[in-house]
């Protein structure tokens, strides 16, 4: 099935309580699949097409405040519209899943795949000091696998989780082992505004503190949560890195293409490897720093003008050179182009 369909089927199987969305290419199949397969009849899940991405993400905010497993999906321009509410979700500490099947920007850009939303996803997007725990699938299988994981992480940290995918993974068709079905929630966390129990005082979901001294403490608590994520949630994959002299760093669809490059070069006797961040926040910086002690150079490969490379450089420091290869505007590199970049920078 398509990556977008895998997201939708996995959501139903993950016991999602609600999906609110708005059509945008190249992710529209998510909501279409939920409607076509009648997710509501299958599990009682709410599926609603909103009048805008702004409205959709605020519906997510409402359902999330009730402690439900709730999600939306969109693509780059739509995610930009959602950024205000994403900041509110982070500030009010509400769990939810946001899927970005990203496309080329800026502006209306193109409907072709892109990874140029990396900065928006891991370095803000909305206002204020907040972080989204971000998973980057590189296969249709991971599109399916990351949905239930995202819900669980979102509830563990009371924080929005982003699946940052791209138009290639979203539209790509692959064989996929679907996750087991699990029931929808029947009990909800104590903080959830589901109506008070007798004897219980009213609860509040808010991101507002007019007293700066109180708001600083709130921010410090959020930061402590992000530090915990950095300790506990880093995910990554290493391929052929054990004896590698040069390592490609790439996520999502770029990693799939770069894997092909690396395997071709390995067949030719070249000691190259692939390091694939699976969580973009928290970024696997300690692992890259450790790898830097053993290799001679890194090549960051992205469908952007070079965004993740900043985090690679922060991790690696001046230990070894960090070079960049990217395609822009919805163009996707070939394995040969990546090989060419490796040969150019590292005289393989």
């Amino acid at each position, binding site marked *: 099935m398509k990556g977008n369909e895998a997201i939708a089927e996995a959501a139903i199987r993950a016991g999602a*309580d609600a999906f609110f969305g708005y059509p945008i290419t190249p992710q529209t199949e998510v909501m279409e699949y939920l409607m076509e397969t009648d997710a509501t009849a299958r599990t009682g899940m709410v599926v609603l097409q909103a009048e805008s991405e702004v409205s959709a993400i605020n519906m997510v905010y409402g*359902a999330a405040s*009730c402690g439900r497993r709730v999600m939306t999906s969109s693509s780059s321009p739509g995610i930009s519209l959602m950024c205000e509410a994403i900041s509110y979700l982070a500030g009010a500490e509400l769990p939810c899943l946001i899927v970005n099947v990203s496309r080329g920007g800026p502006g209306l850009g193109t409907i072709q795949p892109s990874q140029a939303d990396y900065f928006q996803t891991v370095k803000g997007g909305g206002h204020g000091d907040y972080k989204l725990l971000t998973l980057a699938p590189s296969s249709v299988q991971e599109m399916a696998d990351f949905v239930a994981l995202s819900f669980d992480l979102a509830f563990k940290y009371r924080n929005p989780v982003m699946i940052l995918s791209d138009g290639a993974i979203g539209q790509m068709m692959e064989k996929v082992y679907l996750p087991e079905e699990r029931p929808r929630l029947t009990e909800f966390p104590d903080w959830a*505004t589901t109506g008070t129990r007798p004897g219980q005082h009213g609860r509040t979901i808010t991101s507002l503190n007019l007293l700066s001294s109180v708001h600083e403490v709130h921010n410090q608590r959020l930061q402590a949560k992000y530090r915990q994520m950095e300790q506990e949630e880093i995910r990554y994959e290493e391929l052929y890195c054990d004896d590698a002299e040069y390592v490609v760093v790439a996520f999502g669809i770029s990693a799939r293409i770069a894997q092909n490059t690396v395997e071709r070069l390995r067949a030719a006797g070249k000691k190259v490897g692939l390091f694939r961040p699976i969580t973009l926040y928290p970024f696997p910086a300690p692992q890259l720093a450790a790898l830097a002690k053993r290799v001679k150079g890194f090549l960051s490969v992205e469908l952007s003008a070079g965004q993740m490379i900043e985090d690679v450089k922060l991790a690696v420091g001046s230990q070894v050179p960090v070079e960049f290869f990217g395609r822009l505007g919805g163009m996707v590199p070939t394995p040969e182009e990546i090989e060419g970049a490796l040969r150019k920078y590292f005289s393989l």
Partner: protein
Amino acid sequence: MDVKDIIREENLVYKKSRLLTDTPFNFCPGCGHGTVVRLIAEVIEEMGIEHDTVGISPVGCSVFLYDFYDFDVVEAAHGRATAVATGIKRVMPDKFVFTYQGDGDLAAIGTGETIHACNRGENFVIVFINNGIYGMTGGQMAPTTLEGMKTATCPRGRDVKTMGYPLNITPLLAQLDGTYYVTRQAVHTPAAVRKTKRALRQAFENQKNKKGMSIVEVVSNCNSGWGLPPLQANRWMEENMFAKYQLGDMKVDGVLQMR
């Protein structure tokens, strides 16, 4: 003398709803907000639904609603109250949900969300406070600011040629198939307060009976924003606001009312 010696049970004619906390209202003296906030608490208490109610407090003078109510309240971003309420109501259809929105929230930044939530016939209650001005930010022009009315951002009066016309949004919402009950009330006299309370009760009863969207607009004063003492503000409201925003029912039981 203790307060208990003064207020004897047999003499008690009125008391604060137990759903109101002891936090003092942050509203200016003379403002109608406090009355409406109290009426909502009374209606919810009288219906015995406080454990099944979630209120939505968006940005504006409504934002601290959660400090005043002893039931669950969710803050919403500016303009997004009806989208947030939709999310809540859709996953908890048997709970009572209401939004409490000002004119800026409902009729400017949140116009899209308002119209579409009404058009979907979402089964919750919108309480809409129309005082023709942005109170919380200190008295700027609202969509409902009257022609010629002075505010901080139209200090020479609203010039409709460049600033647009006062937006009479509630009759527009009454035209939508998804609205079931649309009424416009006020809280400047004891009689008006009683009528508003009846309207709020009707709106919550409609929700109980799953009738769809009920909207209770309250045309109210903003004496600090208008720069008038409370009594004068109320007189000005009767003469000017009520002329543009006429009180009365616009839609009852899903039927448009002849005006």
